């Protein structure tokens, strides 16, 4: 556990970057520091590995005061990932990753073997091992940065806006892989971001900070969305928090409807016979949904051909059976046929739901939550 114990950082010019911060980042979980620019997130993070020394207060790692540990030694036991990756330009990818094991006195061979494992863990091909940072894309550099931080298998990781400098598509990939890796490794992580969506997606607990370096709220994401403590948090969390809260609600048993399908390459005449309301779902050989086909609009002439990818409407998103209500609702709303496509965990097509069916489940859940809230509120009063 990382404990901030009344930590304050003031600068000689009078700026209070962090003001009396007390916070326990639980072991094995991701705690996100989020807040507007300049609210002291980076300062807080850098006080953990003593890149910045607090003016007052203590930072404790599993009960041990970090001030009592030599900075270099402390940092070798803490993974540190920063926004610009900060790779060493004169070293290859492999040697960048091997940095900390080498500092810890491992042999070159051992350190490189370890680096090669990490390359794999962060989803980079071994062919990149001998490249230099300038030869990598921003996303690849960031993966190498994560691998370097993980190389000595530190129990604690500090990450300062690690995914902010890459484009949205890559960011989403990196976030997903980060969650996958964390599920495997269970590090104690403090993750800084200014993006509330990223915070909600990644955080087990979220600390919202306000300018002036004070903590506004420290809660799990669902609670942050459903019960923001004050105006500032409510405003920062954003308008569509009711909708976003659905990200934390599992769908439960959805009433899946059977859906006629055709396989890619099947004759279009078959598609025209089986379409429902003008649309038919096209699946691949492995039963994975590929897209919708507007079979109702096909002319006799067109129907002589076969179902090819060029005819598919790819607008619909997919939701998994064990996914969240937000995914399911989005699948229904985005589907050109109005029928949201639900798949099994392995990607095989499972069935469809309509938006009204998902909404019915949302209603049921909301009713249950309201009743629960009333019970607990009266419970508190009595």
């Amino acid at each position, binding site marked *: 556990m990382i404990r901030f114990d009344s930590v304050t950082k003031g600068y000689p010019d009078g700026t209070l970057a962090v003001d009396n911060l007390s916070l326990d980042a639980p072991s094995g979980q991701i705690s996100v520091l989020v807040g507007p620019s300049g609210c002291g997130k980076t300062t807080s993070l850098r006080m953990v*590995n003593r*890149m910045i020394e607090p003016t007052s207060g203590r930072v404790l790692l599993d009960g041990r005061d970090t001030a009592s540990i030599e900075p*270099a*030694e*402390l*940092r*070798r*036991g803490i993974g*540190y990932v*920063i*926004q*610009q*990756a*900060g*790779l*060493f*330009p*004169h*070293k*290859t990818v492999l040697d960048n990753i091997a*940095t*900390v094991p080498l*500092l810890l006195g491992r042999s070159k061979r051992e350190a490189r073997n370890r680096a090669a494992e990490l390359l794999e863990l962060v989803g980079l091909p071994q062919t990149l091992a001998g490249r*230099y*940072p*300038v*030869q990598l894309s921003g996303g690849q550099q960031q993966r190498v*940065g994560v691998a*370097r*931080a993980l190389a000595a298998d530190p129990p604690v990781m500090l990450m300062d806006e690690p995914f902010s400098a890459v484009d949205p598509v890559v960011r989403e990939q990196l976030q997903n892989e980060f969650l996958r890796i964390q599920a495997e490794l269970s590090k104690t992580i403090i993750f800084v971001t200014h993006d509330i969506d990223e915070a909600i997606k990644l955080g087990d607990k979220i600390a919202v900070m306000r300018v002036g370096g004070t903590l506004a709220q420290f809660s799990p994401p669902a609670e942050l969305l459903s019960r923001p403590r004050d105006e500032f948090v409510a405003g920062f969390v954003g308008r569509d928090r009711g909708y976003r809260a659905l990200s934390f609600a599992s769908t439960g048993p959805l009433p899946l409807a059977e859906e006629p399908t055709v396989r890619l390459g099947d004759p279009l005449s078959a598609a025209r016979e089986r379409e429902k309301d003008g649309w038919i779902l096209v699946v691949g050989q492995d039963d994975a949904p590929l897209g919708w086909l507007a079979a109702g609009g096909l002319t006799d002439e067109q129907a002589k051909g076969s179902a090819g990818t060029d005819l598919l409407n790819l607008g619909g998103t997919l939701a998994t059976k064990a996914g969240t209500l937000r995914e399911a609702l989005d699948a229904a709303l985005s589907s050109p046929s109005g029928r949201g496509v639900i798949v099994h965990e392995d990607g095989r097509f499972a069935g469809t739901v309509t938006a009204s069916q998902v909404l019915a489940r949302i209603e049921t859940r909301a009713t249950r939550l309201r009743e629960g809230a009333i019970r607990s509120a009266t419970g508190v009063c009595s």
Partner: protein
Amino acid sequence: MKLAADNGLPGLGRVVIWFNDPGNWWGSTGLLAHVREHLVYTFVVVCTAALIAVPVGLVIGHTGRGTTLIAGTSNALRAVPALGLLIFLIVVLSPRIHIRQGLGSTIPAGSVPYLIPALLVLVILAIPPILTSTYAGVQSLEPAAREAAAGTGMTPLQVILKVEMPCSLPLIMSGLRSATLQVIATLTVAAYAPLVGGLGRLIVDGHQNLRDLRYGYPAMVAGGVSVAVLALAVDALLNLAQRLLTSPGIALSGTRQRTNPMNSQNPVQNAG
């Protein structure tokens, strides 16, 4: 070889004759001996200057402290006239140096009182280019890389030696190269001090024998040409060393983003 029409005046023909005379090449006062002295002096001077300037430049670049002081001193040093300083140092220092022994043929007996001021002038001249380029090299390192170096648990010394120095190597080397060229050229002035060798001997001694048509002007031209050839050769060697020493990762980033203005005088950019 004889001149077709000996008009009793200096001319390029006499330079050719000079070069064709084996007596001018070999022996303790021959061209080759002077080339050797020139190289030894250059080596000693540049190494001494680098041993002072590189560490100081690295520390200044690392801490960011003392930059204005260094920039000012460097510029002031650049403005010092080499010959004036040489004369001054000879007058001030030579009487206080009591070493009379020599060492081999490069340092003849009795030359040390003159050699030390002469080489000292050159060290003073060689320090500014090395110092400023080393410092600029460290400053040009991406701040994120420095942050990451400290953040991975490197001590300040490790940050300097493992990250900042290798990354600023192209600039350090280009500083060394311009210092070396400057030393090779300015060493000719050092021959104004008696008993100090090097190719400047040919120029200064030639100058004192201008009436001797076989020796005066031809020796001066030969000295000048040799200095130029030596400078080109040494620079080519250093260029090669720079290419071999610079990490391909740095050389590549140089071609992609010429962020540092000093890179323009830095041919390694095209390596790799």
